[in-house]
């Protein structure tokens, strides 16, 4: 394998010569592979691998977090969510803080665990749902098949339309390494809408070889002037994707404007529960609670630069709080909280 990697990196060097190439990946797990195996060190100086907004925990804006806090401060519900989300702070509070104050906050591995909690209690159970197209099908299945006292606060986001905002953003990107598991659901075909921008895309798996191969495909495409969608992850990604998953998602959810940390509001990326399932929608069911909700600014985060990290404009080490005031034990921004956040990954592997 070492030999193959050497051969491949020499090729990348050869065909990229004399050109500045900026590639962006869009997945926290890809950043993990890149940092862990130190793949950036294998790239020639002129090829840059940036990290984009690929972690569903990091991109949740403070507004959603505050709304969920607002709800559990006022209602005696069981609040269930994924572990990473429970640690994200807002003004020194997180869902774990609320749990230590006696609120019923449960960390679950999957939405189906939350459904099971609802089956065993008379209390209302609210699932704080986050994630992209990978995660949304499971939430849709749960919404269709759960007891009356189970609700979802949907903070999901559609990833594919968000790519367009990145393409049109401040940075010139020459090629994208597309997320493997989002692609498992949406298929190769979902990327066809971006072909008009003339930027090559490569869907990649999560081994170091996968990421290197995708990088090679992109550099080659740029060199030959052939922008196309390459599928390196054929072992899981088909042209059509998972059609059943797409169907259940569109049955239950509809698109709306969505706010992203660092990227602002992006049309079509918000995920609302359709009217047919309004009795499952925590925002509608607890409407009265949200009536007096007013979002606030978190002063502690004044110097946090997560927004720029998410856009690939800076790396974590450009943030002056990185590993000083902001550490994995005492994270200030979400990029340091989530296991898929770029700051947390750089801290873990001592990058920078």
């Amino acid at each position, binding site marked *: 394998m070492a030999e193959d990697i050497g051969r491949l990196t020499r090729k990348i060097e050869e065909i990229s010569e004399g050109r500045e190439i900026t590639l962006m990946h869009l*997945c*926290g*797990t890809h950043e993990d592979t890149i940092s862990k195996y130190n793949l950036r060190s294998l790239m020639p100086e002129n090829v840059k691998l940036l990290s984009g907004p690929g*972690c*569903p*925990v990091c991109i949740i804006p403070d507004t959603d977090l505050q709304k969920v806090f607002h709800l559990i401060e006022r209602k005696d519900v069981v609040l269930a969510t*994924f*572990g*990473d*989300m429970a640690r994200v702070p807002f003004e020194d509070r997180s869902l774990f803080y609320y749990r230590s104050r006696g609120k019923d906050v449960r960390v679950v*591995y*999957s*939405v*189906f*665990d939350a459904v099971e909690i609802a089956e065993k209690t008379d209390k209302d159970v609210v699932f704080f749902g*986050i*994630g*992209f197209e*990978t*995660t949304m*099908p*499971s939430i849709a*299945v749960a919404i269709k098949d759960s007891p009356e006292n189970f609700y979802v606060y949907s903070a999901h986001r559609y990833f594919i339309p968000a790519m367009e905002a990145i393409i049109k953003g401040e940075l010139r990107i020459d090629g994208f390494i597309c997320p493997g*598991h989002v692609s*498992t*659901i949406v298929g190769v075909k979902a990327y066809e809408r971006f072909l008009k921008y003339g930027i090559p895309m490569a869907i990649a*798996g*999560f*081994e170091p070889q996968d990421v290197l191969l995708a990088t090679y495909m992109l550099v080659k495409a740029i060199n030959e002037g052939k922008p196309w969608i390459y599928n390196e992850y054929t*072992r*899981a*990604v*088909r042209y059509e994707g*998972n059609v*059943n*998953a797409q169907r*259940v998602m569109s049955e239950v959810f509809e698109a709306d404007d969505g706010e992203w940390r660092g990227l602002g509001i992006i049309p079509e990326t918000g995920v609302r529960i359709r009217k047919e399932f309004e009795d499952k929608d925590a925002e509608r069911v607890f409407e009265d609670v949200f009536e007096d909700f007013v979002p606030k600014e978190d002063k502690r985060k004044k110097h946090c630069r997560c927004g720029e990290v998410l856009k690939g404009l800076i790396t974590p080490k450009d943030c002056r709080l990185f590993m000083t005031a902001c550490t994995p034990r005492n994270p200030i921004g979400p990029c340091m909280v*989530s*296991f*898929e956040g770029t700051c947390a990954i750089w801290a873990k592997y001592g990058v920078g």
Partner: protein
Amino acid sequence: MCLAIPAEIVEVNWPYAVVDLNGAKRKVRVDLLDDVKPGDYVLIHVGLAIQKVSKKEVEEIESLWQKILED
């Protein structure tokens, strides 16, 4: 939270199945896949099987998981 892990189907009780995740048995939902049977390999993401994968290719992914687990 977002990785998907390959696992072998041991038993199917529609819409549930029992999978073998590196020796650990786990109940998952398989509603979104057409026709799954014991011996098939599927990618599991937060309790739901999201795609079937071929066995040979799964072995490659498994070796990655071995590495990650041994870290």
